[in-house]
């Protein structure tokens, strides 16, 4: 997946000279997760460069560049470190088009690794997607595999509005399914690791069905897509697994079509429960598919606590917890 993200940058930079890439350790070294490796060598120091450690500076400058007409794609080293930039994201990037009546806009992409599972404790594990989806004017994307990561990132960079691009860091090296005690299968043995060379996009705002099923719909994104598939395999429940891919704009049609068919719905995310994106999904499902529902919509999420360190597997909503929820909704 790291390879696919690098590739997406290279394709976008090749096609459009106005694409610039920067962030902490992003230039010479190629990023702490190596997602920008080789870009500085290939495109030069004025297209890909190291930033000082100031997230507000990085995003603030990116807003200015984007308003001018460049297409910055910046990296925040961990999503947990985006808070100093939050004002620039929420009050500035997200609203520039609106407040200037289209006179200025901010076509920038902000990439950041999200999620736990690397013993990163409370400051290298967060999933702050709901802090972005709650903000009018932001597009929020989260891929679950290399094919989508490349296609969605190119689409994000080409988009004329600010896009938050969340990269589940546990997926960088393989389709992690929550079975942390088993060996990780590498991406090379996964269907969606087949990444075409050159240009293609995955349109923003489209979900993908990862498994068809008739008994219950699972709504997931990022790492949790693989966790949900593992839970389905472990329990043998005939579930339909939807990978949302983009949270805003949301592919409501795919969601409602599926829930109308299965009559049951489980929402899964790693982020904390209260006011999480799952609450939005549950509300939409009950609004649009109420008469099809045979059971209340269930949510399986992180607990409402900071992400712990040594107890992270007791915190992570793994296949066992998801599996129990699947069985619970079927018993209702």
């Amino acid at each position, binding site marked *: 997946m790291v390879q696919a993200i690098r590739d997406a940058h290279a394709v976008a930079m090749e096609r459009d000279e106005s694409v610039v890439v920067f962030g*902490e*350790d992003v230039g*010479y*070294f190629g990023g*702490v997760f190596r997602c920008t490796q080789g870009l500085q060598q290939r495109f030069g120091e004025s297209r890909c460069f*190291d*930033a*000082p*450690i*100031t*997230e*507000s*500076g990085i995003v603030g400058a990116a807003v200015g560049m984007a308003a001018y007409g460049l297409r910055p794609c910046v990296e925040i080293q961990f999503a*947990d*470190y985006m*808070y*100093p930039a939050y004002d620039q994201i929420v009050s500035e990037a997200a609203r520039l088009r609106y407040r200037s009546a289209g006179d200025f806009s901010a076509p920038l992409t902000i990439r950041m690794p999200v999620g736990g599972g690397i*013993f*990163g*404790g*409370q*400051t*290298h594990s967060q999933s702050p997607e709901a802090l972005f989806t709650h903000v009018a004017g932001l597009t929020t994307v989260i891929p679950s595999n290399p094919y989508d990561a490349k296609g969605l990132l190119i689409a994000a960079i080409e988009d004329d509005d600010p896009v938050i691009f969340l990269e589940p860091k546990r997926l960088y090296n393989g389709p992690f399914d929550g079975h942390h005690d088993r060996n990780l299968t590498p991406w090379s043995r996964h269907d969606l690791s087949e990444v075409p060379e050159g240009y293609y996009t995955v349109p923003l705002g489209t979900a993908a069905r990862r498994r068809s099923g008739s008994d219950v719909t699972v709504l997931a994104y990022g790492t949790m897509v693989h966790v949900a598939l593992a839970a389905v395999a472990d329990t043998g429940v005939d579930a339909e697994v939807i990978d949302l891919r983009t949270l805003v704009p949301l592919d409501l049609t795919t969601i409602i079509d599926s829930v109308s068919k299965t009559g049951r719905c489980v929402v899964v995310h790693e982020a904390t*429960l*209260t006011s999480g994106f799952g609450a939005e999904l549950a509300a939409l499902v009950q609004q649009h598919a109420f008469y099809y529902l045979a059971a209340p919509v269930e949510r399986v999420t992180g*607990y*409402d*606590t*900071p992400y*712990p*360190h*040594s*107890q992270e597997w*007791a*915190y992570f909503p793994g296949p066992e917890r998801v599996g129990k929820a699947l069985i619970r909704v079927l018993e209702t």
Partner: protein
Amino acid sequence: MMLTREFDRQMMIDQRQSKASFYMQSTGEEAIACAFHSALREGDMNFPTYRQQGLLVAAGYPLELMMSQVYSNSRDPLRGRQMPVFYSSREYGFFSISGNLATQFVQGVGWAMACALKGTSSIAASWIGDGASNETDFFSALVMASTYRAPVILNIVNNQWAISTSESVARGLAPSFAIRGHGFGIASLRVDGNDFLAVHSVAAWAAERARANMGPTLIEWVTYRAAAHSSSDDPSGYRPADEAQAWPLGDPIERLTTHLLRTGVLDESDVAALRVDVVDEVRVAQIEAQSHGTLKQGPVPSPREIFEDVFKSMPESLASQEREAGY
């Protein structure tokens, strides 16, 4: 300094053996924290970064408790909630470490303001790295310290690197980090941080100023990060392997040793005995700490700890999540 280095060396080995998830050494920078500590009194508070373990070691905090935190074992004072090296001890004047860079720098100013408001002669010492000194919280700290003349020492540890990024990126067009203080009317110094005695006297001077209500002091300590950024980092991808040897300010332990030998305070046999002592002290602490577990072997803190201390008293919404988890 020797104890801190030996502690780091042993913890790094233990991390490589999966006894800890992560580790960060302070190799080459020990003089700053260790000598600085002697300028502090009981009641003073440090707001450190993850690379000031020397403050705790110099303060005599039990090594086995530091290790228990690093191993995330059943005796971890932070109950498994924090990554290794993110210590916390009110008693030993060491504010809880945050993973988010720079946040502590301005909090130290607030603590110092509180000391002044309460009429005590206690002070605070904020710490930050060269790289992190570009965060907004750094500048907010200068603003607050300047406006309120807070009794705080603002320490910038310039160890030349911020992960893979050279200090020149952080410094920009300025000739030093220390010079930034001048724009705020803050007394500012740039000091050889590998000279134990220099650190000691400058820290004592700044602390005295703060206690005498003469306001904040900003100090840039010039040093070199001799080891990798952390156990997750390999510096060979971004800097020459022998750069540490070429560093003109040398190794702080060797420098002080040479000084003490030349001035006759110590002789070779004293130094040799010290080397044996620190290895022993670390080994004894390590055996004790490991008897309470290590990360992979356990025992580790209970998963019930996940739910404690989010609030002083647990709200029902969280209590029900804890019941559902069933730990």
